[in-house]
């Protein structure tokens, strides 16, 4: 009996190896390693990595650039997640109706999500061109002054966010379309019989019923925002004067531009901590408030 159990264990472990080996080498080990590196000082070159204790973290938490990056990251998350959720839901509500050509609309709105971020960011940087770009042409036509979309510290974040939301709103819409289809129509009819108007039906029946989707999208979009790099790299490189430098961008710059491995690792640990904490909080929160049906 005992022998057979062992054979079963080994057999199953063999099945897990093709995933487990790369997972360990490229994900689990690096995770432990980055934690270790965050307590050392290293520049990629020197043969030794002296242990420096908490000093990387102390330096990081004393560094105003860190707080700037944190603020920019929060702004970027909020500026991406909220419009994407609201816009995605609004579009889904418009499309959740027997409508001629709705699949074409859906296709067009969804298409940016499929395209490479780098390529479309290049296209957008031409649209944001300050002198003859399309964005300023439209602004002028509407009677507004031109804006330095990617050059002006006041506007750069807006420019990056427009591209980000443009890319993800159709994706959120498709999720909401599925969720809305799953709202039982008899519930809505019952609410109507009880005298609920459209607004009440939406806020009291539909919105609570699709909350698992909102919750899921919130988490995925926030984690994606924390990891956004491509569009920032093409559009602004973190500038002008750091107004689009997120934590991830700071991490990248201290690692691969300043070669400050220890410092960069401490930023990475902060990022990991943010993602895990966020997921756990959201999970606990969802237990209480999200309605699964």
């Amino acid at each position: 009996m005992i022998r057979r159990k062992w054979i079963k264990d080994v057999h199953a472990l063999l099945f897990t190896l093709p995933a487990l080996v790369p997972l360990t080498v490229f994900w689990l080990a690096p995770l432990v390693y980055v934690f270790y590196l965050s307590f050392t000082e290293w520049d990629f070159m020197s043969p030794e990595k002296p242990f420096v204790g908490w000093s990387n973290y102390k330096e990081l938490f004393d560094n105003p650039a860190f707080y700037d990056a944190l603020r920019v990251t929060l702004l970027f998350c909020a500026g991406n997640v909220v419009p994407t959720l609201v816009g995605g839901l609004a579009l889904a509500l418009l499309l959740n109706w027997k409508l001629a050509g709705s699949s074409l609309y859906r296709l067009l709105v969804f298409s940016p999500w499929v395209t490479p971020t780098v390529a479309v960011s290049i296209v957008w940087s031409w649209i944001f061109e300050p002198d003859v770009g399309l964005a300023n042409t439209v602004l002028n036509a509407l009677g507004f002054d031109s804006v330095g979309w990617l050059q002006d510290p006041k506007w750069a974040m807006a420019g990056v966010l427009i591209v980000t939301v443009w890319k993800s709103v159709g994706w959120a819409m498709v999720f909401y379309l599925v969720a809305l289809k799953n709202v039982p129509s008899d519930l809505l009819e019952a609410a109507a019989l009880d005298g609920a108007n459209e607004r009440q039906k939406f806020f009291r029946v539909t919105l609570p019923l699709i909350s698992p989707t909102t919750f899921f999208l919130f988490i995925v979009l926030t984690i994606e925002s924390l990891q956004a790099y491509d569009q920032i790299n093409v559009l602004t490189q973190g500038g002008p004067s750091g107004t689009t430098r997120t934590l991830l961008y700071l991490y990248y710059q201290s690692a691969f531009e300043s070669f400050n491995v220890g410092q960069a690792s401490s930023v990475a640990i902060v990022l990991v901590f943010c993602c895990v904490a966020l997921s756990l909080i959201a999970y606990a929160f969802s237990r209480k408030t999200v309605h699964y049906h």
Partner: protein
Amino acid sequence: MKEMNASNKTNTVNVTKLLGTGLRHILLLAVAVIMAFPFYWMATSALKTNDEIWQFPPTFWPVDPQWGNYAEAWLQAPFGRYMANSIFVAGAIVICQIFNSAMMAYAITHMKFRLRGAFTGLILLGYMIPSTAVYLPSYIVLSELHLLDSYGGLILSNCVSVFAIFLVRQAFMQVSHELVEAGQIDGASHFRILWTIVAPLTRSTFTVLALTTFISQYNNYFWPMLITKDPDLRLVSAGLRDFFIEGGAYGLKWPLIMAASAFTILPLIVLFLVGQKAIMRSVNFSVGVNKG
């Protein structure tokens, strides 16, 4: 919509419904045009001469379309090579991920073994860790393995995805144990049961997985750019970005840059149009992931 209103109200209902439909069309049309306009702008900017593209106000259709711009851009940088690299690397990753996520998912759903719970927990936890955070240590690991600047590094470092395992696990949980047990009674090995019974039953999940993985890997930029310096190994996004910076000196050759962006995006648009049903279906599966 159906029996919501009494019949004497039918007329007013029809009018509001008609108005509602019209309004919806107008709104949706406006949104669709805004969403798709950057693509139109890219394709037509590529057809302009350098003089015309700097004109103010811009022209909405080029006066004298320069179709040759596309060919010229194609020849100015090795885009064929970049695209072949992207397709090869993304394709290889898709094959690896299908194989190892199926094996892993099968083990944690249909095989009984002692570490099963721990493995499932590991996958769940992995779902929360941002992969970009481990780019720095992974880079060091790759350099220790002498895999920097190689196709092997590009493929191996992306050959497993926690998300893929998650997705397949979700599908395999729908397959009944009895089916697996019946296979075992017939004397089939687990490997055989997985690939001849379970996988064919869940092939729509694999289609979704293949398409979404291919798209994200074809588009991948940050990580491949970090681990390769050799221009011959460049994937299409990094190649395009180089062309944007070097060739264009930030905008001196905008028509060519737009042309290059256009043919970078084109294969994905085609793939999207062919596989749109499956790609949109991925949403259903991902929602399932959340509930798991």
